[in-house]
């Protein structure tokens, strides 16, 4: 029996079918030929006749190959897994591609390692930033139906949004019908005694309705009962899970036991669930009615109370807003003195928590996206170089019948494999990077505990890496697939091709352009931070130690005892060697808190609220000015003689003087303070920045009033005592005195702790934390971008030198000097760099506008910054060109010519 297969294969040869398809056709036709041959034989034909006829019918006048050509070549013939359907066929090819891809990548470990590392940097950084964005911006708050939770602010004509007066909260809660419930909370500090060393706890006064409003069920015990949240009720306390677990050693019998907080005995009635994060730091929660202060009962003070409401299911936020506005207007008519012009503003709770940081995070998302694009361009260039080197391989495959689509698919599989590998490493980098971001992030970064790698982050990484793989793989893939088999094979191993160089140059230019944008952004942030650090805050920030103090429970017994305890404490601390002066203040500038008081000129009774103005209000001891080194402009500051026995006095700053007494001498004049009554001005001092180095100048309230601690009336003494800060001006490094200060504050009874110890410089740098954080992350991104761009241009130039070895050899033979050869190569590289730089500068000019809100003292398109960026990148690019150029001069002309 003749071998039909061989015959048929010959006919099909120039169709260049995929091998598997060809085998299939050969098998089917051979079967046919065999049937026909048998039939002819059994019909009486001789072997030779049967053979001839069968063959004729196979080729016939319509050549088999011609008939097949049109059909089999119309699209990519794919190897077919025999007997499988089209889905199975796809999987079979995919498996084949994967195996082949892995083999190829293993064969060049250096390339694979570098490409994966570059991608890991890009993908890792993106994953890290995305996990922050996911945790902070995207994930819903961890409460049931969190989208119906609203933060409710009180608004006044003077402040805009402000915290809420407790009576307003009670009225809103009683009158409104839009809310399922409302709760209130106020952060405060608690002195925890009676369990070993005295300890300072951060805590929160909450209304009994707060946790039910949020939908929080205690981990242990129960929520507060309404009767526990009444004036005069016995103190109850709920504990933070972490506090219970660590500080109380997870005591299973804790319910019913009593903790001594601020000298009150409070029975533990519940432990909150582990994942509750109301405000990041609270350790204990006490009913708000236990907050023993007149502040709570008046409508005129708004003592940091935050109100949360839960909308009823069918009520819109607009309807609720309208309702609460009408309640407020009733209150304004009822209490014109305190509530004229006051209103309320509803903000979705999540927006309230994270809204302000959104633009910063989005900026970082953009920046990190650029880093990834740069990494992609880099890897794409490497792949291009490889695909040139692999032209022979592709040519052979094409000659053997592989279609263009098939090769593109193979190459894309390889690049996706690369990026998946990069993503795996990137995930590790991201875990590490995320903790780095969190460590560097300002404490104020909301929801930071919710940041982590969750399924969404993994999904994001997977999606990014696949898209990335396809993105950077496309150009090299098409380049590879377009290989003309005949030319490539003729050329031998030395690949060439103009398209490749254009693409590669484009990639490098894009890399440089993006690096320019990132560097410009980082540079602008650096400038802003630097300029902020140059701002004069109005006092001497060096060598000041600040610490919060808590008084002994025995000292808290009466207002005179409190005054005495502080006097003695100041005396002991002042005696420490190295302490130059010491003072107490109720608020520290730039520390992020503030307290204001309404005042009006003269001694008249209080006008309606909309005709008073507010000033920042600090209660201080006499040495405050010398500790802070705030200049005294006129009159005098306080002395020990300004006490309850003498007429009440205040000092004002020059801003208030200019504002209230323009062109007049304020010394000796009277003003009236809300609640406190009329006081006489004895001194005028310089303005000290309170709100922030950047925003103080534009803040609504800048006037400052200082009030002597010794003149604080008895009724305010016990409430004001928790927020006091001890300030020390030191000769030596402030932190070196901490243990001495701790010992002297503790006093003979050893039950007065210090906490929150910071230097003034730390406070200032903390006030810049968010900007610093943005700056730091941008610098890291920009440095990565710079590195990748440098590697990119270096790679391209090295390759160019290798490719031009022959040419450069000839030039050297013909007498070109080393300088000329270096110039030639550098010129080629720098042209690319210049194109990238120009494009990048234009883009930076357009894009940095989005940073305006984050900048201080520098315009988005600051020419100096852009020029510096251009210089830096230019220098790096020059270096990256120069190294390969130097190598070019080392070419031995004879060797270069011989290798042809």
């Amino acid at each position, binding site marked *: 029996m003749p071998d039909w297969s061989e015959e048929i294969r010959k006919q099909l040869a120039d169709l260049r079918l995929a091998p598997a398809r060809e085998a*299939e*056709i050969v*098998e*089917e*036709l051979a*079967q*046919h*030929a065999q*049937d*026909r041959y048998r039939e002819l034989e059994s019909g009486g034909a001789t072997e030779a006749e049967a053979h001839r006829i069968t063959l*004729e*019918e*196979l*080729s*016939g006048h*319509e*050549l*088999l190959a011609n*008939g*097949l050509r*049109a*059909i*089999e070549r*119309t699209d990519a013939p794919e190897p077919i897994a*025999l*007997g499988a359907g089209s889905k199975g066929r796809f999987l079979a090819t995919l498996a084949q591609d994967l195996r082949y891809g892995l083999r190829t990548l293993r064969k060049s470990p250096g390339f694979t390692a570098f490409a994966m590392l570059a991608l890991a940097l890009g993908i890792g950084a993106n994953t890290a930033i995305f996990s922050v964005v996911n945790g902070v911006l995207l994930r819903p708050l961890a409460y049931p139906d969190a989208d119906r939770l609203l933060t409710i602010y009180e608004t006044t004509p003077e402040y805009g949004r402000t915290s809420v007066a407790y009576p307003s909260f009670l009225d809103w809660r009683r009158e409104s019908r839009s809310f399922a419930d409302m709760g209130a909370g106020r952060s405060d500090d608690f002195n925890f005694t009676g369990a070993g060393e005295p300890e300072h706890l951060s805590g929160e006064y909450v209304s009994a309705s707060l946790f039910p409003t949020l939908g929080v069920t205690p981990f242990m015990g129960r929520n507060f009962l309404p009767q526990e949240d009444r004036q005069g009720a016995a103190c109850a306390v709920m504990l933070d899970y972490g506090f219970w677990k660590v500080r109380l050693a997870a005591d299973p019998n804790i319910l019913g036991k009593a903790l001594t907080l601020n000298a009150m005995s409070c029975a533990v009635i519940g432990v909150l669930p582990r994942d509750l994060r109301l405000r990041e730091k609270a350790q204990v929660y006490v009913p708000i009615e236990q907050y023993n202060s007149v502040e709570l009962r008046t409508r005129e003070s708004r003592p940091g109370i935050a109100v949360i409401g839960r909308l009823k299911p069918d009520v819109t936020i607009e309807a609720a807003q309208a309702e609460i506005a009408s309640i407020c207007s009733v209150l304004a008519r009822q209490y014109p003195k305190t509530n004229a012009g006051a209103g309320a503003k509803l903000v979705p709770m999540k927006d309230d928590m994270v809204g302000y940081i959104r633009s910063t995070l989005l900026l970082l998302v953009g920046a990190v996206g650029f880093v990834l694009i740069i990494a992609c361009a880099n890897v794409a260039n490497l792949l291009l170089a490889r695909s040139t080197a692999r032209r022979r391989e592709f040519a052979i495959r094409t000659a053997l019948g592989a279609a263009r689509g098939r090769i593109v698919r193979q190459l894309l599989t390889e690049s996706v494999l690369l990026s998946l590998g990069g993503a795996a490493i990137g995930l590790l980098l991201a875990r590490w990077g995320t903790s780095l971001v969190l460590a560097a992030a300002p404490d104020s970064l909301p929801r930071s505990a919710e940041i982590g790698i969750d399924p969404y982050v993994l999904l994001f990484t997977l999606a990014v890496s696949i898209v990335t793989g396809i993105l950077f793989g496309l150009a090299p893939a098409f380049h590879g697939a377009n290989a003309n088999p005949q030319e490539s094979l003729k050329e031998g191993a030395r690949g060439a091709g103009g398209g490749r160089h254009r693409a590669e140059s484009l990639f490098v230019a894009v890399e440089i352009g993006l690096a320019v944008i990132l560097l410009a952004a980082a540079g602008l942030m650096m400038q802003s931070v630097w300029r902020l650090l140059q701002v004069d805050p109005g006092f001497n920030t060096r060598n000041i130690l600040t610490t919060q103090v808590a008084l002994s429970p025995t000292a808290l017994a009466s207002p005179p005892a409190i005054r005495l305890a502080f006097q003695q404490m100041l005396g002991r601390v002042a005696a420490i060697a190295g302490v130059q002066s010491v003072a107490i203040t109720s608020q520290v500038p730039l520390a992020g808190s503030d307290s204001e008081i309404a005042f009006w000129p003269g001694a008249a009774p209080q006008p309606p609220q909309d005709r008073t103005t507010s000033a920042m209000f600090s209660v201080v001891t006499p040495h405050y000015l010398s500790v802070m080194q705030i200049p005294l402009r006129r009159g005098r500051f306080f002395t020990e003689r300004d006490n309850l026995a003498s007429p009440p006095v205040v000092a004002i700053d020059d801003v208030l003087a200019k504002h209230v007494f323009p062109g007049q001498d304020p010394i000796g004049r009277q003003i009236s303070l809300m609640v406190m009554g009329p006081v006489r001005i004895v001194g005028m001092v310089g303005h000290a920045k309170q709100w922030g180095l950047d925003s103080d100048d534009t803040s609504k309230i800048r006037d400052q009033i200082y009030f002597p601690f010794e003149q604080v009336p008895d009724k305010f003494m016990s409430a004001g005592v928790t927020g006091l800060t001890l300030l020390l001006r030191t000769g030596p490094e402030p932190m070196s005195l901490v243990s001495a200060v701790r010992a002297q504050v503790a006093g003979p009874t050893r039950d007065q702790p210090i906490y929150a110890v910071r230097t003034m410089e730390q406070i200032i740098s903390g006030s810049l934390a968010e900007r610093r954080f943005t700056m730091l992350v941008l610098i890291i991104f920009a440095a990565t971008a710079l590195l990748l761009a440098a590697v990119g241009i270096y790679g391209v130039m090295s390759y160019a030198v290798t490719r031009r070895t022959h040419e450069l050899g000839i030039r050297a033979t013909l007498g070109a000097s080393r300088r000329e050869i270096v110039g030639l190569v550098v010129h080629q590289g720098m042209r690319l760099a210049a194109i990238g730089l120009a494009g990048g500068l234009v883009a930076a000019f357009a894009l940095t506008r989005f940073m305006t809100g984050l900048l201080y003292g520098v315009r988005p398109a600051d020419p100096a910054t852009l020029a510096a960026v251009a210089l830096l990148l230019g220098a790096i690019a020059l270096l990256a060109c120069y190294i390969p150029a130097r190598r070019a001069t080392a070419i031995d002309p004879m060797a270069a010519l011989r290798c042809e």
Partner: protein
Amino acid sequence: MEDQAIDREWKKGSAELLILSLLEAVPRHGYEIGKLIEQRSRGALRFHAASLYPLLYRLEKRGWIQGRWVEKSGQRRRRYYRLTAQGQKMLASQRRGWRTFVEAISRITGAENA
């Protein structure tokens, strides 16, 4: 001879319809299809391998028929083609078209002869 009368162009035009018709009831392999065309046309129509298989592959590519390798004990495996749902539709429409065409032709040619 009849063979010459039925010109190549005729064959081309009708080939698809013939193959689809033969596959309507049962799946068949290529050789069988060729054989049946020859037998049922009493030798008037004949497709050799060189033209038959390209046709089959074209129909398969269009999705009208689908080939599948079938192994029967004691034989080499063969590729059997069956009509797909799409093929059914094409067959129906081609049949209608062919009928219209034949009627039209016979009205013309019949009228001349009458």
